[in-house]
């Protein structure tokens, strides 16, 4: 039993949870929803165990480090944070249709991770720092919150299209203003942690390379993401900028998150350690 096997199984468990949430929503049955919750919790347990075990395994190999150093490890951690935040959301808002729009994201992240090299590699000199842990964790909590906001913004737009309230499927969604409120809460959480993530990245960069900001593509794209969400937070104060426009900005913001995470590896710069297969 090693961490790779546990994490592979977790991928399927998350997929099952997502499926059950969707079934519960579409067929309006309580039971698959409850089962979905327990499946998700089981998946989270596997995810947690996998991460801890991998950490231990790296020490056994003599190259001990926190499992946050490459694409595989970061995707596994990303799924973990999405689940943790989602479980808090389900507890507070008590509506499982949200699960149908959020847990698939965790499943996709784990599934995408499984396509990549999962061998434990030693840290190259640039990554040998405690700042690695602070920076990666805070960034991914931010990304996870934005991912959930992306899911709920989708729900909002879908619900908005049904102007006459005729759709039986959408009746099970939370009320529009509640979805809007949840999206806003997630974006505030995401914005706080993205800010801390960018800041810890800057302090780390300054202690390693002598400059806290160099406009390299990864840094710049994280700032672009930050600008988009800052726009959203300010646009809320403007008349006529609620609901739909906010939802679109939230989706644009998440597109920027994805580009910051994956897209920059296709561009030249110092951050390419996060690239595929490395």
């Amino acid at each position, binding site marked *: 039993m090693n961490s790779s096997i546990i994490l592979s199984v977790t991928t399927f468990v998350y997929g099952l949870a997502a499926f059950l949430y969707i079934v519960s929503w579409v067929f309006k049955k309580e039971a698959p929803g409850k089962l979905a919750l327990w499946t998700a919790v089981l998946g989270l347990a596997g995810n947690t165990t996998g991460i801890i075990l991998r950490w231990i395994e790296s020490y056994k190999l003599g190259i001990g480090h926190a499992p946050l150093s490459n694409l595989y490890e970061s995707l596994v951690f990303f799924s973990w944070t999405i689940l943790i935040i989602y479980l808090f959301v389900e507890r507070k808002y008590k509506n499982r249709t949200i699960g149908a729009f959020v847990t698939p994201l965790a499943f996709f992240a784990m599934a995408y991770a499984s396509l990549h090299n999962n061998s434990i*590699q030693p840290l*190259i000199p640039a990554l*040998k720092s405690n700042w690695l842990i602070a920076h990666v964790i805070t960034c991914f909590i931010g990304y996870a919150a934005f991912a959930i906001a992306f899911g709920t913004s989708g729900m909002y737009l879908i619900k908005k299209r049904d102007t006459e309230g005729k759709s039986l499927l959408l009746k099970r969604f939370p009320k529009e203003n509640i979805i809007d*409120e949840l999206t806003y809460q997630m974006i505030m959480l995401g914005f706080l942690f993205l800010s*801390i993530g960018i800041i810890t990245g800057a302090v780390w960069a300054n202690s390693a390379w*002598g*400059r806290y900001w160099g406009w390299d593509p990864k840094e710049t794209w994280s700032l672009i993401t930050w*600008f988009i969400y800052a726009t959203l937070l*300010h*646009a809320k104060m403007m008349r006529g900028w609620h609901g739909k426009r906010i939802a679109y900005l939230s989706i644009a913001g998440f597109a920027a998150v994805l580009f910051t995470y994956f897209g920059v590896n296709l561009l030249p710069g110092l951050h390419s350690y996060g690239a595929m297969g490395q």
Partner: protein
Amino acid sequence: MIKKANSPDTISRVWKFFTSVKLTVVLLLSLAVTSIIGTVIPQSGTASEYFHKYGELRYKILSFIDSIFNIFDMYHSWWFQILLLLLTINIIICSIDRMKATWKIISVKVPPFNVSKFRGLEYKKEFSKNSMPDELEQIYKPVISRSYGYSRIEQTDSGFCLFAEKWRWTRIGVYIVHLSIILMLLGALIGSIFGFEGFVNIPEGESAKKINLRNTTEMHLLDFEIKCEDFSLSFYDSGAPKEYRSSLVIIENGKPVLKKDIIVNDPLRYKGINMFQSSYGTLPPREVTLSFTIRETGMEYKKKAAINKPVEIPEGLGTFIIKDYSSSAGFKGHNIGEAFMGILTPKIGNPLNILLPLRFPSFDKMRKGDVIIAVASHNHEYYTGLQVTKDPGVWVVYSGFILMIIGCFVTFFMSHQRLCIEVTGKGNRSRVMVAGTSNKNKMGIQRKIEILSEKLDKLVTAQEDRLKAEDC
């Protein structure tokens, strides 16, 4: 009607322009979209690098755009700086404009409460108890004053009103965030004016006093010398780099003042100047040992050689002289790595160019000459690549960082909450109304009121049950 260009009128119009949140939205989106350009077009490259990448036509077009808009270094371009400047002015003016009203609310000595406002709230909780108002007052006052920083009781005709509030100060949260941004930009400005960023390559055993500044051909003279006593390199079994380590000594006025081994992520700092392990390189080895294998006899001879110093080939087969060294020599279109180039002058015949790759000792066999030459051994000589920087603005930026985190937390997750518990007596019973407001997060305050109301209800029930038990 003739409009006069009145000074105060223009100033107030400009001021009004900068108080707009719409302007903020436009500026933030502009910064977001234009920043994309600099990630798609690599920044700070040389002309030849861009020419190579884009080809003649596209390079010509981009070059022309660059001459006006500086897209090859767009984050330092005039138009990007203007956007940042406009945003800064927008932040400052918006904050000053709205801060006045906020300060008035925060600095109030005795918080005003209007019970009818609370009564009129859509969301409030009500319940009845079998106790008198003053009994409830005794129970509720300590409970409320424990969780709310400010509370007071106002007596009414039929009972009392308990008012409480907390975290009034958190209304300045957003101004803390704005101030933090100003500090970051200020720190960056200080750094760009009074600081520098450069690099220097120091071969082992040598020292340097001048450093190359980034993005220019200028050199900067330091007050002290940096000496590299040793550079060492280690690898993992997989071939990936494990550690680059330089042993550095700071020499001031001819005397060593500080010694430190630096590795990536652990720099040397002295007098505000920071020296980082950034890269390294190999230097042409000064001396090598060549092996000469005579084809006829099969004998191998070893001889020491240095660049540009001719060496006699054993058994009278001519002379050989090393002319050059390359760390990435090419042969038939392939990069064969480190290699020496030399000229073999045989006793009879024309001189020949010889290539001696360090990775392939049998390379010279292909020539099918009388003698096979190879490099038997050489010592590795390195230079260490250091990034040298100075940034007096960095602590201003860091203070901005801390304020940003605190400011975001206060703005998002703390609010000014106000509570009103109105107790009206009717005979032997009391009617309790629990209501509250918050300047943010409506859903949150509603939940809080629900929970508080249940708690207050249960507290009285517990008290009433105890009294009943005592009576029996």
